[in-house]
């Protein structure tokens, strides 16, 4: 008999194995995590919705299936959390916004559907920056999420709820989404592991869109093994998403190998110039040296185009967002202003009252860059920059299997610090947005801790659809880092 604590100390894959072996039931596991949610939610506010009753019902159903000898996947019966940007039928899916504060979708997103078909139990929906716009999870209509390492700090964002829940051990693993770093940066701030897969790897159907050409769903978990297992389940072609890739190289767990001998790793020198914390720099460069020790060939090089990534990203993402968010108008679903005089008044008030400041800022920015007279100067130019950035990465990947960098220039910021200065927050995305602009995959995993004991993330990027290379590198590093790995004070 395992105690709740012992259950929670297992990784998702370990727990899945014990559930399959009937050593632990899914109900026990679900109760263990619901208990931890109870313990931690008041302090961290990682969840928008906790589905205790539904989760237990589902776990009981899964246990019966297992008793009948059915095994659907290596994560069958494992309790997970889902970022509130992913639609789940008849379950509040708010996107962290007032405007969807009463929205219960009629259908379930493909990624979640894939998890459900694998027998995963959903514990609840996690908090996020409103419409995934932000790097702190402070812009949520449902209040900020706190970082389990230090409750005065943000968990990062926009998948801050998922990251905090994994770090506080109030779920075995979670799904996040990443448009400009929204999986990797909170993973970094919360000392957990996350993967932003190649664009097209995971179906976006049912993911409430922010920047459609950049959005990608991915796993956030206790280690790279869990991430690989989850990615294996959620990836694959979906006839409901024209941009999803039809490929069969999705056996990601097969690349969990402790071996980087001969692997070529490039470290962009121009990522370590200005604005980077000394502790972050030291630890990430130490990680690079660790790879050399482990047998990889490590080289420092100039990537180029670095300073253009953020402006290009914000133009493209906001342009798409300004259009994607037009459907929230008070007509069909979601919030509608109670008092209005005519249609335009209804639109104006609904959207003014329903959206938060950061969302409005990005809608205005996006509408501006798409408007006639400015379209070529901003949007078209940003697309050109995007193509140049892609070229820079392509030529780097001709030489290297992996590009190694920090995830963010800092560790977790203090709550409120970036609200007053959005530009500063945007600049924090310098190492992550290029990955979305180029569509390549990247892993974020812990590689050290700063002077305050806050986690520092390491980013390992690979060429398009080469997740396996990044997973292998991450697994190898993780093995070497085992002794140093720490958990947040709330973890146990």
């Amino acid at each position, binding site marked *: 008999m395992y105690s709740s604590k012992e259950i929670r100390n297992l990784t998702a894959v370990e727990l899945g194995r014990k559930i399959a072996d009937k050593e632990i039931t899914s109900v026990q596991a679900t109760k263990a995590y619901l208990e931890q949610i109870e313990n931690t939610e008041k302090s961290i506010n990682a969840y928008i919705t906790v589905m205790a009753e539904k989760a237990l019902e589902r776990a009981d159903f899964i246990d019966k299936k297992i008793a009948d000898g059915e095994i659907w996947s290596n994560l069958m019966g494992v309790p997970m959390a889902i970022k509130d940007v992913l639609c789940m039928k008849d379950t509040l899916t708010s996107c962290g916004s007032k405007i969807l504060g009463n929205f219960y979708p009629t259908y379930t997103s493909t990624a979640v559907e894939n998890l459900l078909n694998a027998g995963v139990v959903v514990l609840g929906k996690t908090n996020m920056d409103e419409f995934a716009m932000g790097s702190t999870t402070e812009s949520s209509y449902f209040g900020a999420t706190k970082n389990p390492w230090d409750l005065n700090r943000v968990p990062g964002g926009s998948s801050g709820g998922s990251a905090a829940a994994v770090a506080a051990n109030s779920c075995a693993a979670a799904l996040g989404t990443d448009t400009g770093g929204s999986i990797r940066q909170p993973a970094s701030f919360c000392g957990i592991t996350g993967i932003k897969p190649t664009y097209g790897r995971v179906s976006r159907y049912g993911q409430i869109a922010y920047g459609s050409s950049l959005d990608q769903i991915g796993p956030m978990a206790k280690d790279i093994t869990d991430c690989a297992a989850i990615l294996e389940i959620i990836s694959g072609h979906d006839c409901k998403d*024209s941009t999803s890739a039809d490929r069969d190289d999705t056996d990601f767990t097969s690349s969990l190998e402790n071996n980087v001998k001969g692997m070529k790793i490039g470290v962009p020198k121009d990522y370590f110039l200005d604005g980077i914390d000394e502790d972050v720099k030291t630890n990430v460069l130490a990680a690079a040296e660790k790879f050399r020790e482990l047998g990889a060939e490590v080289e420092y090089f100039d990537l180029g185009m670095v300073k253009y990534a953020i402006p290009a990203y914000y133009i493209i993402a906001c342009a798409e967002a300004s259009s994607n968010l037009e459907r929230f108008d008070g007509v069909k679903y979601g919030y509608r202003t109670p008092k209005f005089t005519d249609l335009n008044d209804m639109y104006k008030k609904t959207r003014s009252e329903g959206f938060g400041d950061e969302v409005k800022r990005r809608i205005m920015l996006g509408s501006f860059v798409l408007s006639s007279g400015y379209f070529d100067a901003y949007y078209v130019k940003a697309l050109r920059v995007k193509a140049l950035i892609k070229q820079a990465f392509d030529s780097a990947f001709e030489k290297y299997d992996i590009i190694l960098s920090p995830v963010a220039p800092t560790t977790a910021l203090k709550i409120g610090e970036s609200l007053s200065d959005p530009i500063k927050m945007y600049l924090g995305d310098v190492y992550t947005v290029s990955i979305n602009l180029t569509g390549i995959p990247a892993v974020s995993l812990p590689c050290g801790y700063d002077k305050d004991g806050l986690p520092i993330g390491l980013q390992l990027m690979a060429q398009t659809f080469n997740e396996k290379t990044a997973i292998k590198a991450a697994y190898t590093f993780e093995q070497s880092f085992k002794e140093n790995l720490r958990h947040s004070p709330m973890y146990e």
Partner: protein
Amino acid sequence: MSKEYEAVIGLEVHVELNTKTKIFCGCSTAFGGSPNINVCPVCSGMPGSLPVLNRAVVDKAISIGLATNCNITRNSKFDRKNYFYPDNPQNYQISQLYYPICRDGKIEIETENGKKFVRIHEMHMEEDAGKLIHNTFTGETYVDFNRSGVPLVEIVSEPDMRSADEVLAYLDKLRLTVQYLNASDCKLNEGSMRVDVNMSLREKGTEKLGTRTETKNLNSFKAIKRCIENEFERQADILDAGEKVVQETRRWDDDKGYSYTMRSKEDAQDYRYFPDPDLVPLIIDDEWLARIKASQPELRDEKKERYAREYGIPEYDIGLITEYKELANIFEDGVNSGADPKKVSNWIIGETLRLAKDFETDIADISFSGKNLASLIKLLDEKKINNTIAKQVFEHVFKENVNPVEYAEKNNLIIKTDTGALAEMVKKAVAANPKAVADMKAGKKKAMGAIVGFVMKEMKGKCDPAEVNKLVMEELAKL
């Protein structure tokens, strides 16, 4: 003295394509039905839903493009047109601005002034919007998304037309082409074909284009003609007064017979077009294009030539028959079943069109088989029925597509070939109509009718009137 003006007209024509499912989801395109029955997360603009292109829409668009001599864009794309309106669930319409599927076409039209080409600037695919339903009692408005996502093509002509007649000739040609391709039923009154008229005037003999207006809400060919004539007068009056035509969008009111301003250029919306990131570029490869080319049906002009060549029927008949693909199909079916082309043609342009008018049947909805018409003609040729009965039977062919032989036999309409019985009846008739016989003898030829009529009535029409006439004459001669 007022100057002489020339109208310069270009058209934007929306055609609703008749695919089974919508352009970006699997919902049915069926017209009518209760509100919001043919909807899904995609066509109702639910958060997180994504469009997936229906390739049958592309097939039909390419097919129209080829038939109108357009270049097919081999690397086409979809763009978002952003505007807020409740019938538009995403508040953007997926359309094509930068890389429309077809470009640079032309079609030949014919009017009293002869033949000419009207160039097609471009043709693009897009999705239709839903419909608003206003409750005037409560002041509430509801939205029905059944039509949302129904595929449309918008065909934009160059300003090559100079009169209402040319416009109507162009539209008729376009309608027939699209109907022949089975791409749409093109009904203006039901909205499956919608026409916006762009028009300006310039002094005759000058080249420079004047300021144009765009007029919407034209629901019939008649309305289009009236609108163009009305707009000509309106703009001419403005120009004669030395004033300037305002560039604007106008709305035609067919009841009142005039148009009024909907929105001026200053109110023109900025649609903030940009490529839709949810859809991948549409690549039309050689194979795809070849497949559509191979399956292009015979179009009207080709048919007209062939009918004249192969069947030798009058040009007038050919014109009427090929006016509707459905009639042409019946005609060819009938001729292929062995009937005489001219006889088939007569039944189509005569009785068929008459019945269509009587029963208020849309000609496009006529669906009896030419084979049945051919067997009716055969019954007549073999004198197994007479003309009157043939018309009766044909009515059932028209309405229920009955097999004329089976129908005539079942209803006992076949002419009795038993001449003995007919001769008996003629004798009886002569005997029963002494006055008519006397009149006949006295030279009143009209009296013949009474005797023949008696026979026809007694025989319930199942005899050949010519045959009866002959027998009556013979009988009278005996007296």
